[in-house]
């Protein structure tokens, strides 16, 4: 296998592992917060339904965490195995957040273990809920730290490169790079948003399947409210991300928007096709790109013509960006109408077709999240460390990457199918109605 092959397969394997891990990781970041909110409401309102909601979510969560943990372990090792040259350089400058991440994991893992096995061990339910704080904090902080590493790859700083030697290293400056604030905020908030809509989709699915239990209705209303809040936050921070790109990675923004020539008062194109250097069949929103990039109708936006041809990322990222933004907007509207409609007592938000949309919203949000990552990562190409190291220089020289790719693809297939089968079986065998009855029998029926 030549070195070009090694680079190619290393890329594919990295893409595969990351795309798979991120699904479970996102759930891992968002769901503990949702469990905490549900349990808190349950305690405050003394409502058994919310407590049970927290319980059932937590049970499913264990399965997704397990897959998140093992794929994350694979990812952590793979970074060194597939990109040894990059990690040697990165290790010198950005190892600090990577190292801090392991403490966040430790913290999360320990308290998750305690939380799961102590449901009925505390007299005071509140104490048990408090155990979730370190779980949720640990999960969110692991996202924060790893995203800082990724931000550094987009906007490296905190060192000087002199004759191929790195000197004057400052780990803190490397961490607090310009990409960090928007990137971290967007990633964390989208994780909450994705988790809320996945949980909403499950509740809507149960209702669609004919259950009329108040439990599912409460779950749906709660998660849609949370989803609305987080999708608005996502859009706002996404807008800031666009402004960050305009300033620090203009080639990524220009490629995403098919903004070919530098111009003032730039329009935004949605979808369409690129033919002979012209954008066709696109939805054109006048001035919108200038607003996204600089909050100003007439501001000048740098176009692709300003960059050398070998430093322009693949132009298909345009579609990835559009997919992400369209889904983001759609979910904001869908949840806003639902919440408003519930408040006003509109009947159609309870109709089956509307619930059908909510069910579809779960997978859609996951697609938005994947599209966002692909956009951000492919949009950084050809660089692995923007402006400093090319992806092609970073890869391993080992000849067996293609074989490893096959093995890992098999692994993810097994894990993916396994986790889905186990989750559906777990909840089908133990429906809410039955569990509520069991609990009443246990407690004596004086609750609710």
């Amino acid at each position: 296998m030549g070195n070009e092959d090694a680079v190619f397969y290393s890329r594919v394997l990295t893409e595969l592992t990351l795309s798979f891990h991120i699904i479970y990781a996102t759930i891992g970041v968002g769901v503990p917060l949702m469990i905490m909110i549900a349990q808190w409401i349950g305690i405050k309102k003394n409502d058994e339904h919310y407590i049970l909601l927290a319980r059932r979510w937590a049970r499913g969560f264990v399965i997704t965490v397990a897959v998140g943990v093992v794929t994350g372990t694979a990812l952590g090792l793979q970074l060194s195995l597939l990109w040894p040259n990059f990690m040697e350089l990165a290790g010198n400058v950005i190892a600090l957040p990577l190292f801090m991440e392991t403490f966040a994991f430790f913290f999360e893992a320990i308290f998750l273990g305690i939380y799961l096995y102590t449901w009925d061990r505390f007299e005071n339910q509140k104490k048990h809920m408090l155990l979730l704080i370190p779980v949720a904090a640990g999960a969110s902080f692991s996202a924060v730290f790893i995203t800082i590493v990724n931000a550094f790859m987009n906007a490296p700083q905190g060192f000087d490169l002199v004759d191929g030697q790195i000197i004057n290293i400052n780990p803190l400056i490397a961490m607090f790079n310009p990409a960090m604030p928007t990137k971290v905020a967007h990633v964390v908030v989208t994780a909450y948003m994705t988790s809320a809509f996945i949980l909403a989709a499950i509740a809507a699915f149960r209702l669609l399947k004919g259950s009329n239990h108040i439990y599912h209705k409460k779950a749906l209303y709660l998660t849609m409210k949370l989803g609305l809040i987080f999708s608005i936050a996502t859009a706002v921070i996404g807008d800031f991300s666009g402004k960050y790109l305009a300033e620090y990675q203009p080639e990524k923004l220009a490629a995403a928007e098919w903004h070919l020539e530098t111009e003032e008062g730039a329009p935004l194109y949605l979808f369409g096709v690129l033919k002979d250097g012209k954008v066709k069949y696109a939805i054109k929103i006048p001035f919108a790109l200038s607003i996204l990039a600089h909050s100003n109708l007439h501001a000048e936006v740098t176009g692709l013509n300003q960059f050398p041809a070998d430093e322009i990322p693949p132009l298909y990222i345009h579609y990835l960006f559009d997919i992400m933004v369209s889904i983001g907007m759609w979910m904001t509207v869908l949840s806003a109408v639902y919440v408003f409609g519930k408040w006003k007592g509109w009947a159609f938000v309870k109709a089956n077709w509307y619930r059908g949309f909510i069910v579809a919203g779960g997978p859609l949000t996951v697609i938005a999240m994947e599209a966002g990552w692909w956009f951000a990562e492919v949009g950084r190409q050809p660089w692995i460390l923007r402006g400093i190291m090319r992806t092609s220089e970073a890869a391993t020289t080992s000849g067996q990457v293609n074989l490893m790719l096959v093995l890992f693809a098999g692994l993810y297939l097994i894990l993916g199918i396994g986790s889905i089968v186990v989750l559906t079986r777990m909840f089908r065998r133990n429906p809410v109605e039955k569990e509520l009855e069991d609990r009443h029998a246990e407690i004596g029926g004086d609750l609710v």
Partner: protein
Amino acid sequence: MTHELIGISVLWLFLFGYVVVASIDFGAGVFNAYSLLTGRKHILTNIIQRYLSPVWEVTNVFLVFFFVGMVGFFPKTAFYYGTILLVPASIAIILIAIRGSYYAFETYGSRGHKGYTFMYGLSGLFIPASLSIVLTISEGGFVSIVDNQPVLDYWALFTSPLTWSIVVLSLAAVLYISAVFLTWYANKAQDQKATDLLRKYALIWAAPLMISAAGIIVELREHNAEHYARMLNMWWLFGLSFVLFLGTVWLIWRRQKYGLAFGLLAGQFTLAFFAYGISHYPYLLYPYLTLYDSFTNEAMAVALIIAFIAGLCLLIPSLWLLLRLFLFDKDYVRGKS
């Protein structure tokens, strides 16, 4: 102490933590599978699940901590070991992944598959075997530098008696550590049958442990004379470790003070592990890579050490809480809550 030494000591300590905690885990899986094979499943299953369920994720983090910290403190290892280890480490990861996730699927999801119990047990043997290869490689002699790239000679590696002695040692250690710990745990749980069975396993695995350890020292004389000489200089540490080993076996044999027996075992492995580590000094990969020429810059080193101390302040109380709730809580151990 230089920063290099602080760094490697911290990592070695966490690797040691992983070795002990993971050994208990791996060994338990093996015993469980074995007892299913011989029709004694119910004796062990409860004990093993009570202990393992709350801690498996924590075990995994010890490993993650080690390799992330390694790249942080010694970035050049990413280049050398990253290039060489693609195949063995990938295989280990895949095994760990299947083991970890199926553990969760089985424990929290659905129960039952026999085939699964065997796979689970087998993976507990293959994972330590494949991880221990890294130690073998670090002794040198299997890696050469071609066009500025390190290349691993698999043929030499797999035909070397040193490789296989280290594999055998890792397996014996896994089973021995696990059996001693679980004997203590079963005894605390007042499960007489399980205690007797595990005690027997502990005694059985004591001898292979010592034989393979002695074997490695002999192999090393041929393989890496420098390392061998440094080990001889520290004979007293190894000797002390051996005395502690005898203490453990004695207590287990006499059915006395299983807790103390495990304490002595911890002492035995700490001494041997650190004596081995110190004698390995200063090489990370003999003879290409030492602590000193692979070390990160001063600024990063200081930052990592500060982060480490801050992290420990969070970690130690949490670990203590975990142990108190699940290991030292009488009701939990006995299955009353």
